């Protein structure tokens, strides 16, 4: 796995988990937190980084008079995730071919 060819976003396990969770559709901050099991602070920092890089978009609204933040994966995020999974797939294929 060539570390240099992988985007910075996928260098962290938590960021990989966030993208994997959002690939299934829109999620609220609370839902992402429950799925990833991350702390509020750590999650906020990583989400901000991904937002700045253009991987995810944020929508703020009110639900039952309470503020709610929803996140979506951008097209760039989706494409990069697919590429990343393909890279991982290639690594495993190369290894299995080498084995044969």
């Amino acid at each position, binding site marked *: *796995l060539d570390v240099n060819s992988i985007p910075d976003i*996928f260098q962290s*396990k938590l960021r*990989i*988990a966030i993208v*994997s*969770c959002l*690939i*299934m559709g829109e*999620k*609220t901050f609370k*839902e992402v937190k*429950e*799925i*990833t*099991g991350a702390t509020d602070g750590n999650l906020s920092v990583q989400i901000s980084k991904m937002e700045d890089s253009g991987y995810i978009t944020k929508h703020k609204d009110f639900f039952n008079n309470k503020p709610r933040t929803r996140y979506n994966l951008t097209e760039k995020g989706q494409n990069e995730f697919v590429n990343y*999974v393909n890279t*991982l797939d290639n*690594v*495993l294929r*190369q*290894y299995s071919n*080498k084995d044969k």
Partner: protein
Amino acid sequence: MDEKTLHEAVENISLIKGVIDRTSRSFVAFSKIFIYWSILFILNSVITLLMTLNKEKVLEVSKQYPVLSNQYSNFFLIGVTLVAFLIYRAVSKKIPLVGLEKHLMKVWLLVLAMNVIPPKIGISTATAAMDLGSISVQSNNFSIILFSLSIALITTSLFTGYKQLSYAGIIYITISVFHSYLNLSVFEGLVQVLSLIAIPSTFLYTGLFLKSQRVRGN
């Protein structure tokens, strides 16, 4: 290619797979909780049945330890509910319930709590001379059990789109209404059996149904 690279790739793929599994609306945790609950309530029904069949022995114990025996059934029911809640906590800790699953589970927990609340029956006599020892009172909350289960089944059906659960709910309401408003003493034996199996069989049916939907990938 070195071992470290391979290990990293495998680790990241399993992480992605794990997150996607947890995120997808598979009702996997949901169905697991129902199946465990059904086992718990089958045990509860078996113990209740054994106590009913050995009424004399239970009465003897009641006479020997009145303080303990008066509260026994209440403690037992609270204990069963507590275990059910612990099962819910343990399963949802491993596979977190998200969004819809979580809200539906709250409905089911409330229905469960409603069914373990013991009925309070008071008897008042017109004259003090009446022999209370000769009065036998039988309570039956079969209709309430079925109606409350139907509420949870129909709510789950409305939010998940699985119509089969709604059909089961409608059948429960029909039986509940018939039992309440028609005097069908012929079926009393059957009603007693159904009272014992209503909760565990509903949990088992819901659990297996949701599990089968997951297997089919719906």
